[in-house]
C-alpha cells in the first residue's frame, strides 16, 4: 500500500536534490511567491551557489539582520544600480581563481527592468558567466508598491492610483525577457511558480549554459500583499497567467526562441484579472486594451519563434 502510494509522487521531487539552506521561520508574508522561489533555487542548484542581490523584498532575509543570518548561503549585498556589474566581478574572480562556483544574481523587476537595466544589458553583451534571475512581482513591493517598468496596463499602485484623475497605470509593460533574448545570450527563459518542473529544468539548463556565458531567467512571482491576492491564490494566479497567455513560458538558446508550454485554447485575460484586486476597477474597454496587449506580445513571440527557426544566426569568429 505504501509502495503504491509512493509511485504517484510528483516529478518535481526528483529535482529537489539538496538541502533547504533557509531556517524555517523567515520574515516573508504568508503566501509569498518569492519565498517559494528562493527556497527552490538552492534546493535545485545546490547549496554552493553565491547569491548577489540588492535592496528588495529578498534583502531582509538574504542579507540577514543584526549579526545573524537567516540562511547558510553566501550572499553579497550590492546596490540596485550595479547589481550585474558586481556579479560580473565575482564571476570573473571565480573564473580567474579556478573555483567551480555558480554566481546567481537574484533581483526584483525594479532592479532588472528599471534601475539596473543598463549594466544588466552590459553584462549580457559581454557574455559574463553567471545566472541572472529576475523575480517579477510587477512593482517596487518592498518600498510600498510603486509602479515599475513591468507593471501591466491598468494596475493600481501607490504611484498610479485609481481615482478621479487616474485610472491605474496608463502605459504598457515592457517585455524584459524578450529584450534579454534579443541580446543573443546563451540562455534566456521565462518561468513561473505554478510549473515547478519547468522552472527546475530551466534552472539546470541555465547552470549548464553559464559555462558558455550569460544566463537569464525571468520568474513570474505574484505578491499577495501588493496585488491584493488572497494568500492561497498565489499559485492559481501563476497558473491563470500562463493559461491566458499573459505570461507565456518559453526559452531561448542563443536567441532561438522555443515555446516550452503552448496553450491550445487561451482563456480571456479577464479570468486572470478577476482574482486580483489591483485590476478590480477595469471596465470592458480597459480589459480590451489589456487583452490586445497580451495578444500582441504573444503574436510577436510566436512570429519570432518561427522566424528564428528559419533564419540562421551569423556564426561568430570564435565558433
Amino acid at each position, binding site marked *: 500500500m505504501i509502495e503504491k502510494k509512493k509511485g504517484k509522487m510528483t516529478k518535481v521531487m526528483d529535482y529537489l536534490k539538496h538541502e533547504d539552506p533557509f531556517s524555517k521561520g523567515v520574515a516573508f508574508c504568508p503566501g509569498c511567491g518569492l519565498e517559494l522561489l528562493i527556497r527552490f533555487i538552492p534546493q535545485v542548484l545546490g547549496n554552493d551557489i553565491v547569491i548577489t542581490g540588492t535592496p528588495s523584498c529578498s534583502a531582509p532575509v538574504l542579507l540577514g539582520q543584526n549579526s545573524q543570518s537567516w540562511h547558510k*548561503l553566501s550572499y553579497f549585498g550590492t546596490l540596485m544600480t550595479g547589481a550585474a556589474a558586481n556579479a560580473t566581478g565575482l564571476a570573473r574572480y571565480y573564473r580567474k581563481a579556478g573555483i567551480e562556483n555558480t554566481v546567481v544574481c537574484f533581483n526584483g523587476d525594479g532592479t532588472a527592468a528599471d534601475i539596473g537595466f543598463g549594466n544588466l544589458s552590459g553584462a549580457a553583451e559581454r557574455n559574463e558567466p553567471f545566472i541572472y534571475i529576475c523575480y517579477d512581482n510587477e512593482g517596487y513591493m518592498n518600498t510600498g508598491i510603486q509602479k515599475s517598468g513591468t507593471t501591466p496596463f491598468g494596475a493600481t499602485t501607490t504611484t498610479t492610483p485609481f481615482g478621479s484623475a487616474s485610472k491605474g497605470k496608463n502605459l504598457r509593460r515592457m517585455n524584459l525577457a524578450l529584450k534579454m533574448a534579443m541580446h543573443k545570450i546563451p540562455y534566456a527563459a521565462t518561468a513561473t511558480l505554478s510549473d515547478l518542473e519547468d522552472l527546475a529544468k530551466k534552472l539546470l539548463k541555465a547552470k549548464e549554459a553559464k559555462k558558455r556565458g550569460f544566463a537569464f531567467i525571468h520568474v513570474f512571482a505574484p505578491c499577495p500583499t501588493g496585488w491584493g491576492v488572497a494568500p492561497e*491564490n*498565489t499559485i492559481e494566479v501563476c497558473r491563470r497567467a500562463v493559461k491566458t497567455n499573459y505570461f507565456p513560458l518559453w526559452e531561448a538558446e542563443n536567441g532561438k526562441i522555443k515555446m516550452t508550454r503552448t496553450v491550445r485554447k487561451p482563456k480571456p485575460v479577464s479570468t486572470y484579472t478577476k482574482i486580483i484586486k489591483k485590476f478590480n476597477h477595469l471596465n470592458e474597454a480597459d480589459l480590451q486594451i489589456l487583452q490586445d496587449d497580451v495578444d500582441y506580445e504573444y503574436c510577436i513571440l510566436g512570429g519570432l519563434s518561427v522566424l528564428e527557426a528559419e533564419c540562421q544566426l551569423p556564426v561568430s569568429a570564435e565558433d
Partner: protein
Amino acid sequence: MSSNKLFKHEGPWSDANDPLMCSDTGDWRSKRPVVDKDRCIFCGFCAIYCPIQVMEMVENSYFSPDLGFCKGCGICAKECPKDAISMMPEGDFEK
C-alpha cells in the same frame, strides 16, 4: 514542533557556528491546515508548493505540516488535487 538545527554545509563566507535566526511564524496563523490521512494520495503537491516548505512526509504515506512555522497561507489546501487538506480556524484548537 521541530526546532531549528544547524546545517552541515558552510558557504565560503558564511559562519556556520552561530545558530540561524528563526521567527515563530506559526504565531501569524489564523487558520490551520488539517490533513485527512485517508484521502491523501501522497502526490506531494502540497509539499512542493508550500512557500515555507514545512510539509513533512510521515511514514511515507501522508504529509503533515510543521505547525511551529506554518504561516497559514492555505496554498496546500488550494492545490491539493484530492481536497484532503482543510483550513480550520485556529480558535477551534487548544494550544
